[in-house]
């Protein structure tokens, strides 16, 4: 784990390479023909990759980074047009090779690791068979020696009990093991180059650290790596050279050191500035926000004017689920917390830690088996749904995937009109005014109203989801991984928006995330959850700078940082 944190940039491109590059890409252009129209998605990308070097291509969705990676292994698809003055692998020109030669090159010379191991691996085949298949295709050894090699490979990528794991199917393995099996299959034939497209994106932070350390070892053995990622902090620990892509063009290229510490291009600066973390707390991640403030409706103030206690309070929550085999598993085990007015309580934990179940109990969408929740000092979890309804306006929710939380038949205006509370009768015109007010409050404009959720970008959708959450004028908003699916610059905008709204109307947030950077940026107080229980709690400063529990210490040390 520690080798991750010490930067290993012995072979930075800044130094002079006397040998010829292993892979040389010069002036790569890629375009797609879709619906009769030609779109160019990559323009003029050039780089040289040397032995034992790692080049990272960084950019947000749609920047062309994955397409670049795919054209290096000849996998751009049928309707793509790849045009390059040169792609050469040890002197062999790859621009003109046929499908047969590609199959020989892929796997043996260039290994490819895809983002999502669950999709990339055949769900019906044991992972060992999958790796063996790669060996067999390239005529490697005989049956028995292939079997031995598979076990060896799995062992080398740090899969415990490799002989057992080789017999298991992908769905029987955890995310980290699956990703390592995929890396093993990419390494099977000792390729000189590995292309890794977002290899850690779907993984928890501790598993991510393991995979990164595995890739670091691989690099040390002399394998060259092309790493594709949207996450600058992941790249920081592996890359010697960084290409920053935007809109299909490389906007900045330089040694990792230089790009991360002294970026020249505005876009690179904004990308680096947008990464949330401990050091960014209390300041904006992006440029000044252009949102219109609206006063908090008086109705809320009247009803709860005298209330100064915690807006949301959970006491000893326990939730058990019955597994398919009949045994009981405890998803949430004795969790208590208090959310004070106008503050943010962050709950951080890895997948399966019980943080989302805790959020659902806080929203009274799931009943706890034990314990109780009070909202604004009133009974909340223990009362009937019909009595809860009037109080529901005081707590709202924003999910990770806003698209599934919108009725596909409704456009933005209808979605928001539906959410505008009608505690007191309001005319349609009044409601429409309120919808326009909300849209401006989240930094959008009226022209978005007639559009359907599918027609909005990810950032716009999440803003609409926040507008909907604001509609009933709540005092608490539960944000369940609300920024996890967004690109870093969009994430920065949404986080800035949330902070600004909190300042203006005194909202309280229960912020659930697996992302320690986001949690440390936005939270005043933090709960760390593991296996359903709270292992550490305290101010964000204490938890991230002076973690007490070994698990928190492990989490914090696994967190890749830019410096």
């Amino acid at each position: 784990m520690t080798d991750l944190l010490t930067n290993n940039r012995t072979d930075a491109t800044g130094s002079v390479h006397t040998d010829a590059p292993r892979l040389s890409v010069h002036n790569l252009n890629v375009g797609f023909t879709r619906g009769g129209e030609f779109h160019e998605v990559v323009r003029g990308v050039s780089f040289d990759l040397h032995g034992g070097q790692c080049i990272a291509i960084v950019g947000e969705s749609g920047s062309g980074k994955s397409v670049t990676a795919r054209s290096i292994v000849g996998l751009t698809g049928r309707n793509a047009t790849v045009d390059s003055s040169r792609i050469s692998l040890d002197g062999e020109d790859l621009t003109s090779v046929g499908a047969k030669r590609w199959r020989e090159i892929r796997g043996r010379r260039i290994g490819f690791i895809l983002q999502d191991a669950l999709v990339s691996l055949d769900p019906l085949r044991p992972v060992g068979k999958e790796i063996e298949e790669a060996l067999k295709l390239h005529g490697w050894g005989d049956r028995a020696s292939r079997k031995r090699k598979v076990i060896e490979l799995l062992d080398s990528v740090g899969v415990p009990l490799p002989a057992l794991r080789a017999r298991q199917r992908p769905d029987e393995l955890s995310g980290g093991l699956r990703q390592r099996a995929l890396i093993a299959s990419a390494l099977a034939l000792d390729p000189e180059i590995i292309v890794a497209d977002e290899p850690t994106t779907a993984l928890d932070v501790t598993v991510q650290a393991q995979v990164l350390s595995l890739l670091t070892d691989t690099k040390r053995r002399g394998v060259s790596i092309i790493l594709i990622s949207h996450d600058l902090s992941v790249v920081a620990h592996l890359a010697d050279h960084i290409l920053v892509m935007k809109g299909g063009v490389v906007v900045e290229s330089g040694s990792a050191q230089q790009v991360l510490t002294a970026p020249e291009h505005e876009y690179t600066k904004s990308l680096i500035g947008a990464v949330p973390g401990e050091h960014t707390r209390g300041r904006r991640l992006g440029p000044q926000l252009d949102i219109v403030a609206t006063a908090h409706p008086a109705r809320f103030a009247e009803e709860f004017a005298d209330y100064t206690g915690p807006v949301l309070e959970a006491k000893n929550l326990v939730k058990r689920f019955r597994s398919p085999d009949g045994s009981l598993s405890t998803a949430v085990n004795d969790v208590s917390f208090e959310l004070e007015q106008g503050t943010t309580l962050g709950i951080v934990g890895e997948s399966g830690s019980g943080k989302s179940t805790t959020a659902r109990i806080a929203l009274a969408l799931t009943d706890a088996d034990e314990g109780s929740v009070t909202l604004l000092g009133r009974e909340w979890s223990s009362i009937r749904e019909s009595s809860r309804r009037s109080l529901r306006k005081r707590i709202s929710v924003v999910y990770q995937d806003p698209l599934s939380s919108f009725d596909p038949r409704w456009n933005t205006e209808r979605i928001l009109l539906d959410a505008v509370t009608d505690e007191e009768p309001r005319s349609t015109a009044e409601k429409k005014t309120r919808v326009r007010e909300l849209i401006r409050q989240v930094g959008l404009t009226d022209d978005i109203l007639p559009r359907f959720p599918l027609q909005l970008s990810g950032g716009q959708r999440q803003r609409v989801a926040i507008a909907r959450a604001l509609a009933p004028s709540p005092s608490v908003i539960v944000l369940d991984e609300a920024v996890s699916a967004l690109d870093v610059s969009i994430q920065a905008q949404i986080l800035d928006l949330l902070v600004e709204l909190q300042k203006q109307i005194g909202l309280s947030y229960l912020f659930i995330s697996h992302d320690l950077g986001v949690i440390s940026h936005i939270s005043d107080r933090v709960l760390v959850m593991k296996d359903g229980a709270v292992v550490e709690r305290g101010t964000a400063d204490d938890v991230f700078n002076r973690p007490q529990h070994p698990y928190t210490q492990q989490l914090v040390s696994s967190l890749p940082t830019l410096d």
Partner: protein
Amino acid sequence: MTLQQKVPVTPPAARSRKKSVVPWGLGTALAALLFFVVALIAPQVLATHDPYALDLANSLQPPSLAHWFGTDESGRDLYSRVIWGTRESLLIGIGATAASLTIALILGSLAALAGKYVAGTVNRVIEVLFAFPTLLLALLLVAVIGPSAFSQVFAVGVGTSPGYARMIRGQILTAKNSGYVEAATALGHSRGRILRSHIIPNAIRPLVAIIALSVGQSIVWASSLAFLGLGVAPPSPEWGALLDAGRLYITQAPWLTVIPGLVIVALAIAATTLGKHIQASLEKGEK
């Protein structure tokens, strides 16, 4: 080493042309359906003879200019009989579909929305009904009620309902467990309001396509019953009854069975094609 490949920046003109015309399959289906609808409303416009007029001198004539589809054992014009039979056949098909979907809606909604015990019981009932092949279930019902146009509608309706009931149950459950229903719950909307504004509209939408698909199928089932002598009785020109009547002369006059059979197939294909297109355009809207 340097190799400059050609980039086709301008695509072939043919591919950029927008498809604005109705695809030929759908066009043919719509034309056929239009023909059947006219036959249903005003058979006298399309018919060339009296469907019941006996002409024993010209019995069992093969298709000719005078008798497009030939004549039957009593010399009646088969083409006119098919036209006049459209009304009964189509109404039986539509009626059976209506009956089937009504039963399916009730059972499916109960299975998805009722309390634990009611839903459980209804689910078992649907499963038991589903275990019977459609025709067997329909035969059983006709055997109990006795053959008539009504029993054909009822039997086919009940026989085809379990499949639709299961589908409706699935649709409702999908909507009920969706993110937008949870979001509406979190907003504090009442159960009735969520049911009205989210669950029912989203569950019902795919049914539009099912109706068209089901009409075609129901006619096939109803004709099967009539062919077995368990529906409308001859001399009615209902298509299944025509098949049944022609059965006796299949060696001398094969057109008596083949032509009504082809008509049934044509209607079923036309209705199915329309249904598939509605389904596809609905799915396209949802993406």
